[in-house]
Every structure is written in C-alpha cells, then in structure tokens.
C-alpha cells in the first residue's frame, strides 16, 4: 500500500468534558475523495476543523506524506498545502473577490505595498477556469450570489496549489446548476491528484462523488467503506443506527 497523502490517527478533542471527536482515524490517498457523513453534531466539522487548524486536538497524530506534522493554527495548515472551503464560506463581505482570494497572502509590489492590480489580474485568470461567467471583480462579495461567492471560496483554495482540500458542505447554498459545477470541479481536481475530504448531508451526492465514505456518530467513527461495496441504505443505517451492517453480517 502506498503512503496516504494525509492521515489523521486516533484523533480526540474535548469541549468541556464532552468528547466531540473520540479516537477517530481517517486518511486520504492522492486523487481520492473521502466523504464524511453523519448527523449534525456527529463531529464531522470538528474533525476537519482540527485538520484546518481552527481547533487544536487533545490527542492523536496527523501525517502528511507519511511524515508527522503539527497543526496548531490555520497558518500551519496552509503551510502543508491543506486548504479549506467552509460551510459558512468564511469570506469578508466588505472586501472584493481578489482581496478575499488573497486574504492573508496578498501579492505585494517592490515597495511592500499591496498590488491590487496584480491580484485582480491573477483572480481573473483563475476565475476564467473555474467560473467563466464571473465578472464582478471590483464589488464587495456581499453583493454576489451564493454561487459566485462559492466560486471565490473555491478559487482561494485552488489558487495556492492545495494538495489536500477540505470541503464542508460546498453545495449547501447552491442551485442545481451551480451544484453540478462544483461536482465537475471536484472530479477535475481529483484527476490532478488532490486528496479531498467532502462533508455533505446528501447521501446520493456522496455516492456519486466519493471513493470512500466515513460515517460518524456522537464523535466516534462508525466505519469507513468503499462506495462500491455498500448501498445507500447501508450508509443511511450507519448514520441513523450508528452500526456498520457489513461488520454485523
């Protein structure tokens, strides 16, 4: 077996005595999409926030390319080419697309001043690839539609050569057409060798997009299965019953 692109081993985190994530291990291979499923409060978002550096784990280890790494804040995660697209989109509504895309990693000119023209130019290039219809570069992102905002968030993750991409409900706020666009993008990124963690409530969508799915309940991992080995009903029963029917059988 080749080395996983990323591995989280025996991760636990407590919030005031409650184990929000309890001894969970997941991994992703290059060019693989791993889905995380579970009810609200199952611990999916908490788990990926540990990976993104927003929370600090209490126990467990994280490996990138087989090497152990410490992720204590979002900057550490970015340094390991781990990029995150949050459910809440995490955009500053008052800034324009380019400022959001480069937030925390602005391009500067030779005097160390922010180079807005260069950033807009780069934004236009990446947007031409992701969402060719996007033209509103100089307006605050608050005036953009859900799909346009989502493309800004995705562009931000993709632009900086992400190797591991975390997508927390990337299609929750989107219409049918835009959802299809995101699905196409995930497939494209997969062929480029990225490892993707995808969180969604839509089991059908997960069956289509993912190679493997991990189901969580009450902070614990119920099981991880290849999608071709299970039915949608199997997954639903894992989510609801908290038991892996394949292991029981």
């Amino acid at each position, binding site marked *: 077996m080749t080395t996983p692109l990323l591995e989280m081993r025996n991760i636990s985190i407590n919030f005031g005595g409650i184990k929000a994530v309890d001894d969970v291990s997941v991994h992703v291979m290059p060019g693989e999409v791993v889905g995380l499923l579970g009810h609200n409060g199952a611990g999916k978002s908490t788990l990926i926030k540990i990976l993104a550096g927003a929370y600090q784990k209490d126990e467990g280890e994280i490996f990138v390319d087989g090497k152990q790494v410490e992720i204590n804040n*979002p900057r550490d995660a970015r340094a390991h080419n781990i990029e995150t697209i949050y459910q809440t*989109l*995490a*955009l*500053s509504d008052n800034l324009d697309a380019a400022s959001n895309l480069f*937030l925390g990693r602005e391009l500067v000119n030779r005097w160390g*001043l*922010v180079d807005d023209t260069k950033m807009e*130019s780069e934004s236009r290039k990446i947007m031409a690839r992701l969402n060719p219809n996007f033209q509103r570069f100089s307006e605050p992102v608050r005036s953009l539609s859900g799909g346009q905002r989502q493309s800004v968030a995705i562009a931000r993750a993709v632009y900086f050569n992400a190797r591991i991409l975390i997508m927390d409900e990337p299609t929750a706020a989107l219409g049918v057409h835009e959802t299809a666009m995101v699905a196409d993008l995930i497939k494209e990124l997969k062929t480029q060798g990225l490892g993707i963690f995808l969180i969604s409530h839509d089991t059908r969508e997960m069956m289509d997009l993912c190679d493997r799915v991990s189901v969580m309940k009450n902070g614990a991992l119920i099981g991880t299965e290849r999608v071709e080995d299970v039915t949608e009903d199997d997954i639903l029963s894992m989510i609801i019953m908290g038991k892996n029917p394949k292991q029981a059988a």
Partner: protein
Amino acid sequence: MANGLGKLIKTLQIDTRLLGMIGAFVAISLVFHIATGGTFLTPRNLFTLTLQTASVAVMATGMVFVIVTRNIDLSIGSLLGIVGMMMGILQVQILPELVGFGSPSIWIITVLFGIIVGAFIGGFQGWLIGYLAIPSFIVTLGGLLIWRGGAWWVSKGTTISPLDPSFVMLGGPTGTIGATASWGLAIIGSLLTIYFLMTARRNHLSHGFAVKPVWAEYALGAILVGGICGITAIMNAYLVPSRILERRFAADGLEMPEGYTEAYGFPISVLIMLAVAIVMTIIAKKTRFGRYVFAMGGNPEAAELSGLNTRFLTVKVFALMGALTAIAGVIASARLGSAGSSLGELDELRVIAAAVIGGTALAGGVGTIYGAILGAFIMQALVSGMGMVGVDAPLQNMIVGGVLILAVWVDIIYRRKTGDS
C-alpha cells in the same frame, strides 16, 4: 439633467458619499456666512477653522480603524490629557536642564516621547481587548477615568505653561510656513497627484483592465490640482496683521517698508494633519495591515480562518490610535501654549462623531480616512459657526447631538439605497 450628472459622476468614479459630505460642508458654511453677515467664508475664519480641526481630525483617522474592527475607544480624550501633560512637564521642567533652554532638540525629544507613551498605553489597552477578551467599550471607559485621573495626579491640578517656543510652533498661528513654501508644497502635491493618476492608468492598461476615458482622467486631475491650489490660495490670502509685522521689524531695529504684507501660509499643524491623512490612507488601502483591519471588521471569523492573528491586530490598531492621540496632543497643547489637566476633555465624543459622520459604520468593516477628516471639519464648522452667530453653549451641544443622529440616519438611508449595507 440629473441622469447626465449621475453618469458624469460614474465616469469620473467619484464617491457619491464624498460629494454629499462636501455638499454638507459647503451648505453649512453658506448658511453661517449669510447668518454672520459675511464673516464665515473669509480666509481668516477658514484658517482658524483648519487650526481648530487639526487635532480632532488626526485622531479621527485612527478611530476609523478602531471602529472598522468593531471596537470603540472612549479613552482618547483622557489619553490626550495625560500624554499632553507628560510632554508639558518633560519640555518645561526636565529637558531644559539636560539639553539647555532653547535647544531645538527639545521639541523633537518631546514629540518622540509622547508618541511612544501614547502607542504604549494604546497598545496595552489593545492587549486587554485582544488577548484578555475584555470588551473595548469597558477597557476604554476605564481608561477614560484612569488617564484623566492620572493627568490630574501628575500635574497636581496645575497647568504647565508656557510651553517651549519651538514646540508651540507645531500647533498654532505662530508656526506657519509662509506663502512661498506653501506654493512650493502645492506644486509638489499637484505633480505627485498627476504622477499617481498616470501610473495607475498605465498599470491598469498593462493588465488589460478597463480604464476611464482620457477626458475623465484630465477632469479628475484638474479637480484635484484645483482643490490643492484653492486651499493653498485661501491659506495664503490670510495676511499677518500689520501690527504684528511692525513689532517684528521694530524688534530687529528696522522700519517696516510701506505697503509691506506677509501671508501666513499653511500652519505646521495643518501640514501634520495632511501628512497623517496621506499616510493613514496608504496604510488603509495599500498595506497588508490595512487590508487585515478591514477583513477583520467585515468578518472576524473569516479573518481568523484565513490565518490572520486578529488578537495582535487589535493591539496594533489600538497602539496606532494611541500614537495618533499623542500627535493630536502635540497639536492641541501647542496651539494653546499650555498643558492643562483638562486638555482633551470630551474629545473622544468629537472624534467618534467625526468618524461616524464621515461614514464609518459602527457595525464594522466600512469607513474611509478622508470621510473622517471631512466629518471633523463639518463638526467644527457647525460648532464655530454657532459660536459666531451667538448660539448659547448648551443649545450648541443640543444641536450638535441632533446633527449627529441625523447624519447617521441619512447614512443608513444612503446605504439602503445604494445596497452596500
């Protein structure tokens, strides 16, 4: 007609809010000009008005950053008081013995000392807010009481006066640069303006972005250069009274030539204010720090998730506010020629009002430096205009309070209409 004007403004890419504020300033000035029988819009009064506004305007630029990051600073009036008092004691009681009375290093050391103390106190308050998560309203309300009390305690209630003559130049009508130097600065300012307009256009073209039509660039350049020269002309139109000139010639043992006149030109305090305005605008628009201030104000959580250190950012914003308060303290105490323990009282409210009238949203994320400075001028025009007309002080306060509420209401309607909530 109205449509054509709207199109013109759009082509020139002028902020309509800026136009509205200039309009408000002009309207207030005209009303007072008529009410005072023609004494408001005179070079002398406009000169005095800018002198009176400089201190509040300098602080208002820092308050923009504070409010944009969803904080407030109520302590600045008291901070100005204690820093002004410490600078007064340093230059009058300590430095003359160390470096010799009349040494030009006195004002330099005093100003540097003040800025460091201001930045340190501001930064400490920022640390309490950012790292200990105490609300800024509470920290700076405490600061308001603590630093005012400190100013009394340091001075034992006395007023330090007179201040060092070279220091006094930084604040008042005695420290002006004269007509020739003022025109020199105006020419340099105009050339730089044209240079920046040209480089911006070239930069946009080189990336293939849309640019304004050439005539619009010329028009914008003409408006800006016209504004710079107009303000310079006003400052140079105010002549030094002949009595003062005669006395100066007499002091040198000379006779004043017949028909000799001399203009004040730009006061140093106003040049300090302009320099602060330019530097703060560059910080806000063109530095990472400025970008992060606005990002944090727009969405603190997103800023954090993008890897910004929002706690340290808060410390820096309040330290900057403290440093600017010290600069304002230099201007305010130098203008009066003395440092009293009540120096800067109620300034926090004037500064917050200036920033808010200038379009800084208390919800955070939105605000401009030029807006805050114009807001300070509108406030000061209102106050001194009412004083000239002879409105009683209590009624003045009531009117200023009403205007503040009205301005914010107009702003809310404006935002709703233009959709940039």
